[in-house]
């Protein structure tokens, strides 16, 4: 889209207006026929506190260039805490908008008393004026799945092709998958085989099947055990796409905020603004032929700051510290986008492909020879998924652990004693889907903790952290996480070492269970951070 287009299509302001005080002021403007700008599209709401962050973001992804959340002064909220909630949501979403390169000033909170109509008008005019200076946002409405409603999904050729491509007929009905599946084991009425049978029998519209398709963790444990090598996670991934194509909604967690965020990154014109808060002492070199790819950790930290005290961006900084330790001053991409993993694995293949193409083009244009990432999902997605979708990359993708193992192995370094008893949570992507259980373990073995004890199920048999791609989180997921945390406790560990930022988020979430707080709680640290803290020159 050119600048010219931007100017010619009008700015759109979405005004979420609280029903109470502020609405009275707005009504006065209407009654007195004051010139409320045409660009303002008012949505009357019961309370500003009810507009959550997912909705705020959605207003942008649906075409808003600015969003105003207008309500009551703190203390005058009819429901008590609405204003405070709205202010916090505005702040968080603003930080996300900054990361996306859109700018937090496109989202404003304001409060007006019923008799402050002129002040409200001035606020709207100023907002419009500012937005006119800034221009329209670069988010384009998400492409989304193209509905194929004329083809009934149950008998359609798409489904037949899926069944054939994933060898579903090879299933011997042995039940090994269910006896390995952590969801089935925790008691959820869920069966991988059941979904497979339903697909073959054409029962995909059954309520239980519909629900189960979104619950699968795509963790790969079943595939690990299946004697017929039925790649169930991959089948589920494609099945979800089929559901989305048929307008069957997914079961996205957190009001779909994270998916909306990731979808917005499929807009070609969007220029994210990452790495603004990188600690000063870290050394980067924009001419380096080694790129460090961070992934979505900073978005998560903002989104989860209210409930979970997670600091996953620190993992990225520690990764760069380790690169620096070994004299690598990596290049960082200020306009780094999401890799698209969660979109693909939640059935939004169109958006994934759009992001993937943008990423492949951008990355291939850099002239780098290596990309290093510490995120197992980014790693798998760039290393395996892009090429599998026909997107070749002209550089090598390596996981930080591979880099570290190689460097440590040839260097005169040692590890300071770690006064902790540790255990380790595998990443399903790295350990099973990429088949590299040894990567973190080589490094773990180099550490000098008080003790290192694997959990009852570890390595290829490890149970996952309870959620994947932000879909289908329910009480069974929680039960599963509780079981996993109990396994961690059973090792006697006081530090749970993780390999994926999301494991920390999901497991931390389970630790918040108020009834079991003390029993489940355990310190967590990413392996990257543990290494960064303890490595030293001999």
């Amino acid at each position, binding site marked *: 889209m050119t600048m010219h287009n931007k100017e010619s299509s009008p700015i759109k302001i979405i005004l979420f207006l609280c029903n109470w005080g502020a609405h009275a002021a707005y009504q006065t403007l209407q009654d007195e026929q004051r010139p409320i700008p045409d660009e303002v599209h008012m949505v009357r709401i019961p309370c500003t506190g009810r507009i959550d962050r997912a909705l705020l973001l959605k207003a942008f992804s649906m075409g808003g260039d600015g969003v105003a959340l207008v309500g009551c002064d703190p203390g005058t909220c009819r429901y008590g805490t609405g204003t405070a909630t709205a202010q916090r949501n505005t702040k968080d979403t603003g930080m996300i908008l900054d990361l996306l390169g859109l700018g937090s000033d496109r989202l404003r909170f304001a409060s007006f008393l019923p008799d402050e109509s002129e002040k409200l008008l001035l606020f709207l005019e100023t907002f419009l004026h500012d937005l006119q200076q800034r221009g329209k946002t670069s988010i384009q409405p998400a492409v989304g799945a193209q509905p194929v409603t004329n083809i009934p999904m149950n008998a359609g050729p798409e489904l037949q092709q899926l069944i054939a491509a994933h060898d579903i007929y090879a299933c011997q009905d042995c039940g090994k998958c269910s006896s390995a599946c952590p969801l089935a084991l925790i008691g959820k009425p869920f069966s991988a085989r059941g979904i497979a049978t339903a697909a073959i029998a054409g029962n995909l519209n059954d309520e239980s099947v519909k629900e189960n398709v979104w619950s699968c963790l795509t963790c790969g444990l079943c595939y690990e055990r299946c004697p017929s090598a039925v790649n169930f996670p991959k089948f589920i991934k494609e099945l979800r796409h089929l559901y989305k194509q048929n307008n069957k909604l997914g079961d996205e967690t957190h009001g779909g905020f994270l998916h909306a965020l990731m979808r917005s990154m499929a807009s070609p014109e969007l220029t994210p603004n990452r790495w603004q808060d990188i600690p000063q*002492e870290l050394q980067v070199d924009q001419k380096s032929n080694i790129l460090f790819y961070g992934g979505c950790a900073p978005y998560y930290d903002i989104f989860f700051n209210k409930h979970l005290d997670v600091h996953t961006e620190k993992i990225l900084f*520690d990764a760069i*510290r*380790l690169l*620096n*330790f070994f004299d690598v001053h990596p290049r960082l991409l200020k306009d780094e986008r999401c890799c698209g993993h969660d979109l693909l694995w939640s059935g939004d293949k169109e958006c994934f492909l759009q992001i993937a193409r943008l990423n492949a083009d951008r990355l291939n244009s850099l002239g780098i020879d290596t990309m290093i990432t510490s995120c197992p999902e980014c790693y798998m997605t760039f290393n395996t998924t892009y090429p599998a979708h026909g997107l070749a990359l002209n550089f090598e993708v390596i996981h930080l652990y591979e880099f570290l193992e190689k460097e440590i192995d*040839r*260097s*005169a*370094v040692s590890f*300071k004693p770690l006064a902790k008893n540790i255990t380790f949570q595998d990443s399903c992507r790295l350990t099973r889907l990429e088949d590299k259980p040894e990567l973190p373990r080589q490094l773990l073995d180099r550490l000098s903790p008080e003790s290192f004890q694997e959990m009852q199920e570890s390595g290829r048999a490890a149970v996952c952290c309870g959620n994947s791609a932000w879909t289908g989180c329910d009480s069974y997921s929680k039960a599963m996480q509780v079981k996993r945390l109990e396994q961690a406790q059973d090792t006697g560990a006081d530090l749970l070492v993780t390999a994926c930022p999301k494991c920390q988020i999901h497991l931390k979430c389970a630790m918040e269970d108020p009834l079991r707080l003390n029993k489940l709680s355990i310190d967590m640290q990413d392996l990257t951070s543990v*290494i*960064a*803290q*303890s*490595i*030293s*020159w*001999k």
Partner: protein
Amino acid sequence: MTDKEKNTIAQTEIIVTGFGGQGIILAGKILGMAASLGDHKESTLVQAYGPESRGGACNAQVIISNTPIHYPYVQYPDILIAMSQAGYDKFAGQITEDSILLIDQDLVPTVDAPCPAYAISSTRMAEKLGNKMMANIIMVGFTTAITQLVSTSSAEDMIAKSVPKGTEQKNIAAFTKGYDYGLSTLKGRERKAAGQTGAIV
């Protein structure tokens, strides 16, 4: 390296010591031949034979010089490479402040040297590379990195010529392993001296 050490480079006297079967003599031979055949210097080698070559203490004395060498025995080594505790103990008294000591840290656990000492787990590394017998080659690599005694290309050529046919690649890899570790050791010392011990500063 101190200035003094640089000045003595004109003639460098080396003792390689360990026990029979470790390839101590071969290590000395590779260093000496790399210097003379590869780097076009003068060199001599004196090897201790006898019962020593069957598992007891064993040593090679090497002198490398820019000018002809008149006396091939080493009294005060500029470089002592020790791959056994007994070997180290035997020559410990001959080390001076200006010497450089290189040890296999697992085989020489106790040292008390007046000079700079550099340690490597050459035997363990060799085991990891698939053959314990390559510890000597790892040591040659380590020595080359720390002391710049011979050029890497000469050392590699000489290794390729001295080891059993078919094992050249593996031995060159062992040399590189020791060499990289040596460079890393020097870098680590530099960093530490600059106060940068770990990754988090």
